[in-house]
């Protein structure tokens, strides 16, 4: 099968998307597919899907608390459910169910509230007792005699995982087929400006490219790009770590997440346990985190899953995530004409890949926020209409 062409950048495009991860590629794809905007270029400083898209733990779910979040994440989950057919590529999308464990009374109350909120938003959600957790996932230790006992869990059966790098390849290939140029190894070094400060293009290591609109979809490096046009954002960049074990026989048939003890884990089809750890508290762009974060995560994981004590750690790595004050993304226009943002997905952007691209494409094509994106505009930090999803975001920050 043919994937995407290695395009030479033209001198001008209707839209330039900065960032060739899942979100940027999805934006380009939906610009072409939904809006007929095919004169689009994706510029990527490294190789395609080589950043957070290929570093995350691939968890997909939509069980967020607030109406605004439920709407955008559920839209994304619905897109996932038809994405393999739409892109014409096997993404190993597997709706094996996502458990979110509760370990104390506050957790239980928050989880029940989220289950009810999800039900009102037509997002599938169930509450499981500890005995039901043990039936659904037999290797979870539900004994009351552990430091943080399992008091129950929410279950989203439609949640699951997908193979992340193929998601990037799928969007790239489908976008390429519709005429989108994908230019790798082109790092943005500055912006071209027009009358009134309008952003009219990007300077890259492969030349200057003019653009009707520029979209920054650069995750942890968005602040660095925004600073080039004097824009200060409510974002802080942190390393988020993940790890895999050696290959094991199938032991874990679902995704298990725990906010309180900071474990989230699934088992890849090949057999390795894929686990997420936390973020380092300090700002950093080093793409590696501190070891004590891994140590703490492993201690909790082994208590929750005693069978994991036999597993050997194969590899750890870090990605740079852009964390916003309310654990919700920032999508839409900026104070500068011609410049759009899609950032702040923090520690949980993978699940939103198709939905995020869908709403940003609509916002760029129409020049005004799409209905699903409007609540996530940058202005919410001035108006005070924050969308606090710290409870549903899973990684504490």
């Amino acid at each position, binding site marked *: 099968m043919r994937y995407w062409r290695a395009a030479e950048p033209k001198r001008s495009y209707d839209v330039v998307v900065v960032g060739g991860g899942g979100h940027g590629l999805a934006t380009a794809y939906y610009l072409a597919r939904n809006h007929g905007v095919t004169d689009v270029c994706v510029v990527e400083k490294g190789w395609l899907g080589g950043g957070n898209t290929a570093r995350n733990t691939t968890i997909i779910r939509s069980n967020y608390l607030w109406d605004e979040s439920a709407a955008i994440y559920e839209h994304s989950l619905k897109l996932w459910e038809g994405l393999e057919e739409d892109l014409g590529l096997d993404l190993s999308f597997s709706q094996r169910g996502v458990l979110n464990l509760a370990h104390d009374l506050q957790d239980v109350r928050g989880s029940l509230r989220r289950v009810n909120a999800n039900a009102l938003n037509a997002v599938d959600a169930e509450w499981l007792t500890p005995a039901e957790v043990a039936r659904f996932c037999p290797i979870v230790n539900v004994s009351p005699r552990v430091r943080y006992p399992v008091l129950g869990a929410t279950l989203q059966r439609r949640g699951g995982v997908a193979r992340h790098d193929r998601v990037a390849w799928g969007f790239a290939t489908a976008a390429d087929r519709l005429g989108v140029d994908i230019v790798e190894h082109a790092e943005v070094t500055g912006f071209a400006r027009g009358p009134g400060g309008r952003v009219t293009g990007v300077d890259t290591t492969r030349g200057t490219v003019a653009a009707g609109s520029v979209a920054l979809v650069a995750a942890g490096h968005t602040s660095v790009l925004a600073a080039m046009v004097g824009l200060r954002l409510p974002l802080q*960049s942190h390393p988020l770590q993940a790890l895999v074990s050696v290959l094991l026989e199938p032991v874990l048939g679902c995704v298990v997440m725990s906010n309180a003890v900071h474990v989230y884990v699934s088992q890849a089809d090949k057999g390795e346990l894929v686990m997420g750890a936390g973020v380092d508290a300090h700002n*950093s762009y*080093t793409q590696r985190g*501190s070891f004590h974060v891994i140590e703490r995560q492993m201690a909790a994981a082994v208590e929750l899953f005693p069978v994991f004590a036999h597993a050997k750690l194969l590899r750890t790595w870090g990605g740079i995530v852009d964390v916003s004050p309310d654990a919700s993304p920032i999508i839409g226009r900026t104070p500068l004409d011609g410049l759009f943002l899609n950032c702040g997905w923090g520690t949980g952007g993978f699940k939103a890949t198709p939905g995020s691209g869908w709403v940003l494409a609509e916002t760029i094509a129409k020049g005004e926020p799409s209905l699903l994106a409007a609540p996530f505009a940058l202005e919410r*930090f*001035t108006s005070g209409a924050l969308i606090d999803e710290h409870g549903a975001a899973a990684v504490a920050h």
Partner: protein
Amino acid sequence: MLLLPCPWCGPRDEVEFHYGGQAGIAYPPDPEALGDEAWADYLFMRDNPRGAFAERWYHVHGCRRWFDLRRDTATNDLLGA
């Protein structure tokens, strides 16, 4: 893992500290005079450079005092106070 120079206790392991974010964000001298944009700026907008960054640290499991530090966020090199 960082080894952080507490000005009072000397170099200590990162796990003894609490992070305080960007340094030099002063409480507005006349809060009632602030408009919405100025409040947003004070509460939420922060520098987030890839490179030298002045930040606050709190030696919570030591002397329990705050101090400022400059660190390179791309390399974790400490650049002095």
